[in-house]
């Protein structure tokens, strides 16, 4: 384990009594509690932390916070892995295991670095220009290779087992930024009695004030703020987006600083915060300067150098050259000197120093080169010297650190998310946020307050000066973009990738557009700045997903009997949000053999099926009959109390919307059922017409889908079975004929019993209050009913030619389905007129038929296309398609329903059903869609 040779003092943020062990690329190191990965590596003298995106150049730390473009590492493994973690934002914990990215085979020796030597041949736009042809498809092949060579980090392919959550919050005042300005704003708001939320991305409030030598002032503000109960403090939380309605989106890294995650607590939490007003006090970002090889490890931002020293007690170098165009960097000279470190010189671009700069230079006792520039970093296995130029004279200043300050610019990202153009401040040399929307205000450095004036533009730097470290964009690339006409900042960005990295150009945009301004001769203000978009810093997909993963992605709707189905062999299938048993599979059975057994049990005895998923609607009111008569194509007003009938309804355009049962419980009281799939649509359709079309009608519609569990009891023995449970007199055919509804008590519970049939057998649908549904279901099975699933239900209805979702596909009319008589009542109803459109009465329209295999044995598949030609490769015109198919136990052969042009006029014809996915062609005979019991005798059996 290396000792921390670069730890030269006591930092405010670290605890010297608490060492923390960690590894980087497999090498063990020791840091201190309170360190970031970046400060701990620096304390150990590690300068090389990554390889660049395109040229694979060695890179070290540039910054100290969210802006860091270079020191991106991967932490945690395998599913927990978070690539592109900025080492400056990763808090150190015991056994943290970080690995560098974008290098092979190792960080020190990286094969990709050959790109750096080839740099003159891979300018901006290289890939697009070189890999254009020969066809558009070719790019797809190139892209795969290029993406492997370029790019940053790699996402794990393992599922992430971490827990993520979302939290909504509301406040009178939301403050983004916990620096001095933000703290003051939050204290003001809290003092005024407001509910306040203050957000900061660091582990502690205080902002840049925590990076000073003296932190008492900031700590006093924090203590004052903590005294208010009405203040919520969110640290380790990055506000990454500002949205309409004064809404802030933020991500809290709740556990990323801990060695292991508590399973009950989210690793990260997405905060959606709505404020009555928002204070943006996001501070400012220091900018680099541009000179040849300014991307070498050891070239850092001057403020960051000072921060590492004061906050973590870590020296970024023993002997520094400071390069600046403003006063702020002189504080770095003072702090370095106070720590006993050497400052070779301050190289100031300004011809004349400000008074403040001159005083600080005297206090720090450092040599100043005014009107001077660094022209080159001299790097040989480490930073050796800064080459500087003053008044035409070149000299070399030996150093192991270049601390640069190209001035400060407000961190305006969030302020532009709602639109609005940043405003260039000529005097300060930086962009201010746009004019704030109502409810938003800017405080502190965000508003330009207290920022040192920077002299800009710097003269045009060397071609191989880096503008965007993360995107590997150089001054030469900006010049190329200019030459090729990509002069708008938005074109410059897309052509060169300037500002497109995970750092969103926090340290590069200003320099890039300043250089472009210099090339075009326009002012910086005219040149403008690219649009910043959310997120401010990268956000993990897990945090965005929150709790909406696994079983919580889509809630499951459960019928009252679902537990029973699952415990009794139910092979569950999805049906929207429901889970329904396809069949109850016994030992030795397959789903197919089980469904055939179940269907036979119904035709031969009695079965029961859970149809609780049906939509159920109660319509009440003096106008209910008239209202429903207009909604349904089936006649409603002629329906007597106690009777029920098939209810068909059309859309406004004349196409079938849904079918179900229509039952009259009282003069002003109807009980309606819909299909499972259309339950919500049908209620919305009815509500729309009740509220909009005929608001004068006195009718109330309430969904009772969840109120009643529904069980269809079907088969010739159904009456006998139910009579045993609820008494013979209740089921007397004279008092309870087919197509009736009756309320019958079962064991003290009132059950709505509909005598309707889907299977074609004598059948009863029991609608029982859901709490008692399971109990009734079990009683039916105890009494001898065979439970059957949705597959057997489908077999029974196909045998009867009853239509379901595959036929009610939103394209079929009542006539197509052989139901024309049901939609022909004299009174007006929705869809009536539109049924008569020429396209809907065309004789060639496909209509419902039955199919049987000509050989009596071949399987016909749903979805197969029907033609007159046998050759699947040259089949002739499509005549229709198979909608539903099964093996019919009653007919002892495969059967199918189809929508066929010409319909039953083709009865007896032999056609061919092609299923190209399986390369199958079956010869089929057109028959009536009612395969079984055409006269309907079994309804009364």
């Amino acid at each position, binding site marked *: 384990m290396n000792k921390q040779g670069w730890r030269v003092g006591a930092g405010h943020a670290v605890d010297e009594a608490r060492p923390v062990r960690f590894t980087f690329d497999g090498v063990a190191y020791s840091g201190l509690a309170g360190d970031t990965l970046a400060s701990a590596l620096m304390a150990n003298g590690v300068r090389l932390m990554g390889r660049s995106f395109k040229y694979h150049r060695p890179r070290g730390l540039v910054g100290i916070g969210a802006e860091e473009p270079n020191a991106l590492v991967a932490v945690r493994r395998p599913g927990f892995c978070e690539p592109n973690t900025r080492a400056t934002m990763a808090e150190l914990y015991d056994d943290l295991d970080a690995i560098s990215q974008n290098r092979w085979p190792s960080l020190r020796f990286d094969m990709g670095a050959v790109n750096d030597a080839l740099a003159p041949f891979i300018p901006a736009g290289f890939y697009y220009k070189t890999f254009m042809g020969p066809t558009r498809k070719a790019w797809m092949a190139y892209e795969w290779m290029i993406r492997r060579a370029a790019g940053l980090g790699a996402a794990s392919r393992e599922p992430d087992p971490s827990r993520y*959550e*979302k*939290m*909504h*919050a*509301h406040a009178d005042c939301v403050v983004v930024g916990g620096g001095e300005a933000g703290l003051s704003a939050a204290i003001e708001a809290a003092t005024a009695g407001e*509910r306040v939320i203050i957000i900061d991305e660091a582990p502690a409030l205080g902002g840049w004030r925590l990076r000073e030598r003296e932190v008492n002032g900031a700590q006093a503000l924090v203590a004052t703020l903590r005294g208010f109960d009405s203040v919520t403090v969110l640290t380790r939380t990055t506000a990454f987006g500002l949205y309409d309605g004064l809404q802030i989106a933020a991500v809290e890294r709740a556990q990323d600083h801990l060695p292991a995650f*508590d399973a*009950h*607590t989210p690793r990260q939490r997405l905060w*959606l915060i*709505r404020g009555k007003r928002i204070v943006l006090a996001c501070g400012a970002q220091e900018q680099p300067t541009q000179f040849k090889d300014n991307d070498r490890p050891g070239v850092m931002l001057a403020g960051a150098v000072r921060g590492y020293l004061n906050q973590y007690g870590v020296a970024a170098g023993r002997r520094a050259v400071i390069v600046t165009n403003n006063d702020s960097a002189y504080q770095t000279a003072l702090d370095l000197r106070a720590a006993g470190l050497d400052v070779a010189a301050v190289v100031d671009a300004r011809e004349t120093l400000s008074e403040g700069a001159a005083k600080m230079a005297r206090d720090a006792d450092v040599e100043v080169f005014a009107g001077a520039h660094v022209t080159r970093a001299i790097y040989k296995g480490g930073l050796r010297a800064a080459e500087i130029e003053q008044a035409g004279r070149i000299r070399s200043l030996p150093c192991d650190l270049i601390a640069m300050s190209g001035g400060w610019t407000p961190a305006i990202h969030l302020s532009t998310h709602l639109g609005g153009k940043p405003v260039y401040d000529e005097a300060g040399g930086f962009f201010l946020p746009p004019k704030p929307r109502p409810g938003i205000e800017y405080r502190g450095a965000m508003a330009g307050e207290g920022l040192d004036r920077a002299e800009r533009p710097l003269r045009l730097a060397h071609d191989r000066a880096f503008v965007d470290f993360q995107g590997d964009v150089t001054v030469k690339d900006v010049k190329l973009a200019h030459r090729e006409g990509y002069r708008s900042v938005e074109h410059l960005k897309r052509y060169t990738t300037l500002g497109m990295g995970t750092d969103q150009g926090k340290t590069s945009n200003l320099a890039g557009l300043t250089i472009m301004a210099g090339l075009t001769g326009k002012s910086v203000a005219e040149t403008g700045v690219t649009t910043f978009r959310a997120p401010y810093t990268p956000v993990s997909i897990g945090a965005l997903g929150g*709790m*909406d993963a696994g*079983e*919580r992605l889509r*809630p*499951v*709707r*459960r*019928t*009252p009997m679902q*537990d029973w189905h699952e415990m009794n062999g139910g092979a569950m299938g999805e049906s929207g949000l*429901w889970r329904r048993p396809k069949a109850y599979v016994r030992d030795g059975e397959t789903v197919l053999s089980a469904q055939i057994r179940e269907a036979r049990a119904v035709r031969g005895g009695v079965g029961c099926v859970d149809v609780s998923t049906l939509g159920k609607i*109660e319509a*009440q*009111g*003096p*106008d209910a009959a008239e209202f429903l008569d207009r909604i349904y194509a089936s006649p409603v007003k002629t329906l007597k109390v106690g009777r029920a009938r098939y209810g068909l309804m059309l859309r406004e355009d004349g196409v079938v919307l849904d079918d179900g049962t229509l039952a009259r419980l009282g003069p*002003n009281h109807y009980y309606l059922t819909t299909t499972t799939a259309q339950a919500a649509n049908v209620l919305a359709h009815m509500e729309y017409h009740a*509220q909009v079309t005929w*608001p*004068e*009608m*006195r*009718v*109330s519609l*309430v969904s*009772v*889908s*969840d*109120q*009643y569990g529904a069980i269809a009891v079907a088969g010739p023995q159904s009456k006998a079975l139910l009579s*045993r*449970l*609820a*008494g013979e007199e209740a089921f007397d055919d004279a008092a309870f004929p087919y197509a009736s509804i009756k309320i019958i008590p*079962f*064991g*003290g*519970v009132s059950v709505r019993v509909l005598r309707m049939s889907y299977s074609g057998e004598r059948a009863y649908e029991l609608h*029982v*209050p*859901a*709490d*008692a549904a*399971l*109990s*009734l279901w079990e*009683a039916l099975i105890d009494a001898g009913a065979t439970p059957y699933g949705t597959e057997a239900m489908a077999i029974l209805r196909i045998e009867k030619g009853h239509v379901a979702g595959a036929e009610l596909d939103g394209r079929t009319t009542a006539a197509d389905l052989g139901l024309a008589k049901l939609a022909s009542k004299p009174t007006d109803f929705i869809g009536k007129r539109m049924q008569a459109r020429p396209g809907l009465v065309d004789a060639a329209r496909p209509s419902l038929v039955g199919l049987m295999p000509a050989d009596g044995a071949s399987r016909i598949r749903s979805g197969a296309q029907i033609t007159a030609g046998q050759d699947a490769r040259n089949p002739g015109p499509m005549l229709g398609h198979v909608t539903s198919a099964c093996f019919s136990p009653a007919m002892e052969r495969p059967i199918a329903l189809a929508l066929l042009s010409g319909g039953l006029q083709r009865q007896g014809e032999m056609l061919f059903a092609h299923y190209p996915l399986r390369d199958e062609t079956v010869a089929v005979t057109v028959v009536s869609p009612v395969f079984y019991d055409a006269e309907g005798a079994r309804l009364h059996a």
Partner: protein
Amino acid sequence: MHDLKLSAVSALGASGGPRRFGRDGEPQVRLVERFPCRVWEVAALDARDSAAAAAFSALMGVAPPPPGMSAQANGADILSIGPNRWAIVSSAAIALEGDALALTDLSAARSCFVVSGARAEQVLRKGTSVDLHPSALPEGAVVATRLGHVAVTLWRGDRGEFRMLVARSFARAAWDWLIHAAEEYGGRIDAAAGD
């Protein structure tokens, strides 16, 4: 045949049974299912009906609560759930009759949960964007919102606790969601209660 006796079971099945869950220590969230819980929906036959409030008063013996609020009468919570539309929630049996208003028994269609404890608000805030602070959602206030993907009718009871109605078929999903959201704080499920 005459020995048939049907029993009523909650939508939660076994998952509603009393237990501790989540983080160790003093539970900061308490979940209770009110079961059995009677729920009726009372609605004007025409939502524009200006006489609906009078008809409601005649039926229930109390004036209906204003929009967005609930009231208590005869041990029942009366919730305003829409224009001239109310829900009556009670542990005791309710039998409503009359034809001036549409009366619908939804007792088996709704599950009723009570969420209380020091962290109850935080638990719900993980799923709803409604401001639940007492200054924004005072005692008696009712909102229609969602917990995650599940629609709920949520109101604040007289002891600061949150009460909610959930469609029965979604009850298990909502209950599991509540447990998951409360694990961070440590929680306790208490036995189903009439009140």
